[in-house]
């Protein structure tokens, strides 16, 4: 398990992403998200009433934040340079970008990330839990889904993308977050260590 191996992009990446045009990126991600949602109708069942909430995702090592909503079984995404653009957010999840991707893929344990304080949550804790559980059940393969919209190029894009992310995770280029905060995540499960 990749507990405590959280890595962040160096500041230069953030500077680079500052110049990414947000609007096309917004459309791209929303398209991917809706494709995934279409394949997993149970995702919205799981979210239940929490689909009415707005979730703001803050990649600590990039220069934009995302706000996601799930009204009427449709994923809506807005990107912005600043958290202030989403004053009515119900939830704010903050973590390095690649941790967020691992979380989405179900490769990384949300609890472990949280306990090691690589991931922080503000706002409606129940809503975050619902989203986390719904995502965990949806078995999303981030790179695969992103590549899929490239049509005939999807296969090479996917394998290339996966190699790239793996390389990134291992790369010396990434700053290890561990050195700054020596953390010892506990395995004391999320809510309630009472049993069945």
């Amino acid at each position, binding site marked *: *398990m990749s*507990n*405590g191996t959280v890595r962040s992009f160096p500041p230069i990446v953030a500077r680079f992403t500052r110049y990414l045009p947000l609007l096309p990126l917004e459309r791209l991600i929303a398209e991917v998200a809706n494709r995934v949602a279409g394949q997993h109708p*149970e995702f919205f*069942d*799981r*979210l*239940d009433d*929490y689909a009415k909430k707005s979730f703001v995702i803050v990649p600590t090592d990039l220069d934009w934040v995302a706000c996601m909503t799930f009204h009427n079984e449709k994923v809506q995404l807005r990107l912005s340079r600043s958290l202030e653009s989403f004053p009515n957010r119900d939830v704010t999840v903050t973590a390095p970008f690649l941790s967020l991707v691992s979380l989405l893929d*179900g*490769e*990384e*344990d*949300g*609890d*472990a990330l*949280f*306990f*090691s*304080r690589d991931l*922080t*949550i*503000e706002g*409606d*804790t*129940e*809503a*975050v*839990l*619902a*989203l*986390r*559980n*719904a995502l*965990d*059940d*949806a*078995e999303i393969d981030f790179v695969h889904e992103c590549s899929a919209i490239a049509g005939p190029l999807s296969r090479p894009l996917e394998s290339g993308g996966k190699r790239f992310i793996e390389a990134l995770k291992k790369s010396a280029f990434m700053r290890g977050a561990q050195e700054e*905060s*020596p*953390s*010892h*995540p*506990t*395995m*004391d*499960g*999320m*809510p*309630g*260590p*009472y*049993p*069945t």
Partner: protein
Amino acid sequence: MSQKAMELVCPAGTPAALRTAVDAGADTIYCGFRDQTNARNFPGLNFSRKEMQQGIEYAGKNGSKVLVAVNTFAQAGNMDLWYKAIDDVAASDAHAIILADIGLLDYAASKHPDLRVHLSVQAAAANADMINYYAREFGAKRVVLPRVLTVQEIAAINKEISCETEVFIFGGLCVMAEGRCSLSSYCTGKSPNINGVCSPPGSVKYEDHGTHLESTLEGITINQYPKGEAAAYPTLCKGRFESLGETGYVFEDPVSLNAAQILPQLQEAGVTALKIEGRQRGKAYMAQVVKSFRQAVDAVAAGRSIDLDALLAPMTEGQKSTKGSYQKTWR
């Protein structure tokens, strides 16, 4: 010398987690319906009736069994929700139902005499007399033992009873006798017994105070973490408190149970099944834990000596764990 391996019983909070646990080598999966009939009633978790049926089919195809937990205490005036859950389990291909409530045990025994019943740890059957009583009166075939017993006591119990025992080996640790704790409702109004939640997420707040992170439950400070110290979910009994000038973990440190080291003793004590806690944990965690314990349990059964520490290192690295009540000094 080779023995029959102890049964590995693993949690699943979602269908994906169920498939993960089956693929990782679980003999048995336990899960619950998506409502307050089960003691892990958290947002986004658990199974619809259809998902349950699909899960049972998937497990069956791969040689695994499914247990359905209907292990909260039914609410006065609303018995039908629980009765319906029992009826649905009886009509399904689930291997057994896990029950805690006397009224529900009575209902299951009279309405569905062929339904295999396991006694939930929430029923807190902690000695042979009580276990035999449950077996005799309600036909319980297996008892999940509360985490208040030593290995020696478990061995003694197994000599005195006719039904099977299942014990927790890994995951969150209740420091109180299970099913008999109202700390959560005292603070938040919601309890494991009534609502299927302990220290519910809706009452949790984290606040960054610069020098430290503070976790609160319904406004009560449960812990403060200086910068750099790992945080934990503010489960009431694992909080840091003050008593007559002394500050610390009054009830229990934020540790989790890990009985890997004593698997051979548990086998020796006549335990039938080993249970992993954590229906609320993600499938990444599940895959790792189940896989490791699969190897450990098989090795113990085959009488092979194996380095349990090395096997479980990835899960416990940098984390505090305890053998809990299984060793007497814990008390």
